[in-house]
């Protein structure tokens, strides 16, 4: 099957910055894919190249098998992008904006689908208000709706939940998930790692324009096979037990097998130290992310 997105040897050199430095990436149809990386890593640049908003210095990019430069009309029909910036046209109402956007894609009589999208994003009561009169969260919803007017098989969301209320996040993810279940490919960049962790099947991490990790979310999480326990004790344990001082009055202990925990407890009892509190910490994407980005 054709890849939903395929980029090869992608380089983008701006006057000063090298935004992308040779990226190869393939995203399968139907995937829910996360694109992570610190600020300035090149995520938006990659998305802009897919959308035809920027042109690569080297390399190629395809959406649903269509070259973004040569077959731009087909590749743009296949792609819906929610831009990172909160942009809007102050001359129109939300509904007008969606009708106009449909027209740009050559779609007539799109009202049924427009109503469906408005409804699912909780926009129906605001549909006839001028864009200027909408709150930031509502404007963001219209941006999402605009990216969906032509029912694109591939949907790309560039930090759609940055600075957005919980309500929108929930509404948005519910709708995007249902689209994904219907077969749409979804690519997401976000700063909220728990969002990526719960939503995305596969994750790519970018740093300074290079791909530093690409794996399933489960494998990435498994990389941090260490467990951590945090203790509050009523005395100072001897260094031999391997406890490290954590934040404040806490002690931390890293281990691979739970048996090690038993040995530690036995050691503490032998020293006459009581455990006042104990907490197990499971690795999350945040740790993995920090580790990969730091070591890359």
């Amino acid at each position: 099957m054709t890849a939903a997105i395929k980029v090869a040897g992608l380089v983008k050199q701006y006057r000063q910055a090298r935004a992308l430095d040779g990226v190869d990436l393939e995203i399968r149809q139907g995937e829910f894919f996360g694109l992570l990386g610190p600020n300035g890593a090149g995520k938006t640049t990659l998305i802009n190249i897919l959308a035809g908003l920027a042109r690569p210095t080297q390399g190629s990019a395809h959406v649903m098998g269509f070259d973004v430069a040569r077959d731009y009309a087909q590749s743009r029909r296949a792609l819906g992008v929610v831009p990172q910036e909160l942009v809007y046209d102050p001359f129109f109402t939300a509904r007008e904006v969606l009708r106009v956007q449909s027209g740009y894609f050559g779609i007539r009589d799109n009202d049924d689908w427009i109503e469906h999208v408005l409804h699912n994003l909780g926009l129906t009561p605001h549909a006839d208000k001028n864009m200027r009169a909408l709150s930031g969260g509502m404007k963001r919803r219209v941006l999402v709706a605009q990216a969906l007017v032509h029912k694109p098989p591939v949907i790309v969301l560039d930090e759609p939940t940055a600075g957005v209320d919980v309500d929108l996040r929930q509404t948005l993810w519910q709708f995007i998930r249902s689209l994904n279940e219907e077969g749409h490919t979804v690519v997401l960049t976000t700063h909220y790692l728990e969002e990526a962790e719960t939503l995305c099947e596969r994750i790519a991490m970018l740093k300074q324009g290079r791909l530093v990790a690409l794996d399933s979310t489960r494998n990435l999480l498994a990389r941090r096979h260490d467990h951590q326990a945090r203790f509050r004790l009523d005395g100072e344990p001897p260094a031999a037990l391997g406890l490290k001082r954590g934040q404040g009055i806490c002690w931390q202990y890293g281990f691979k097998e739970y048996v090690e925990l038993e040995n530690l407890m036995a050691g503490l009892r032998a020293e006459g130290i009581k455990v006042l509190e104990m907490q197990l910490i499971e690795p999350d994407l945040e740790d993995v992310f920090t580790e990969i980005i730091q070591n890359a």
Partner: protein
Amino acid sequence: MTGFTTLLYKELLRFWKVAFQTILAPVVTAMLYLLIFSHVLEERVQVYPGVSYTTFLVPGLIMMSMLQNAFANSSSSLIQSKITGNIVFVLVAPLSYLEFFSAYLLAAVIRGMVVGIGVGLVTVWFTDLPLMHPFWLLAFTMLSTGILAALGIVAGMWAEKFDQLAAFQNFLIMPLTFLSGVFYSIHSLPPFWQATSHWNPVFYMIDGFRWGFFGHADVAPALSLLVVGVCFVAISGFTLLLLKRGYKLRH
């Protein structure tokens, strides 16, 4: 709707929604010019035999208003979209650069014509304007507003800030339109300025347009039409080239 008709519709709606500024204001400005200049000069100047100064002035004013508004429409629409960022909605759509060009061009031409008709209608109260060659008038109107509309697209693409656009307008468009014989016949100028005026394409737009009304002109209308036509083709070609490259629109 196709992509082109939608973009055209959006561009028309954009100026129509603020018609007070985009149509009424320029008509009022043209009126003021007419009142002041005709009041001061009516008795003193006669450019063509049997044509009063006010009557002489009207076609030039109509053309000047059309040119300025055609330019203003495409340039300000583009720069606003660029600065607010909503240009991306057009850029992510599967529109060809030819569709993009035609829609912005045609909307600007229509804005110019609507303003021109507005000025024309109001001046009916001041003077009796003959209408000798309506098809020539139409040809000069379309080509001339087309040139300024295309220039507006170029300026809108090039400018990154409003003051850069204002500079383009003040140092290029305004001098060219004012120094083109709107208010006088170039035959009344010293030889040097007469010769210089022949290098100004706007001179031919206004001279040819005036011929359409009176059947009188400074140069042969066919020559004017040729100059204006060639300019239109050249600036359109140049604009299309920039758009194809995505000049300052697609990084």
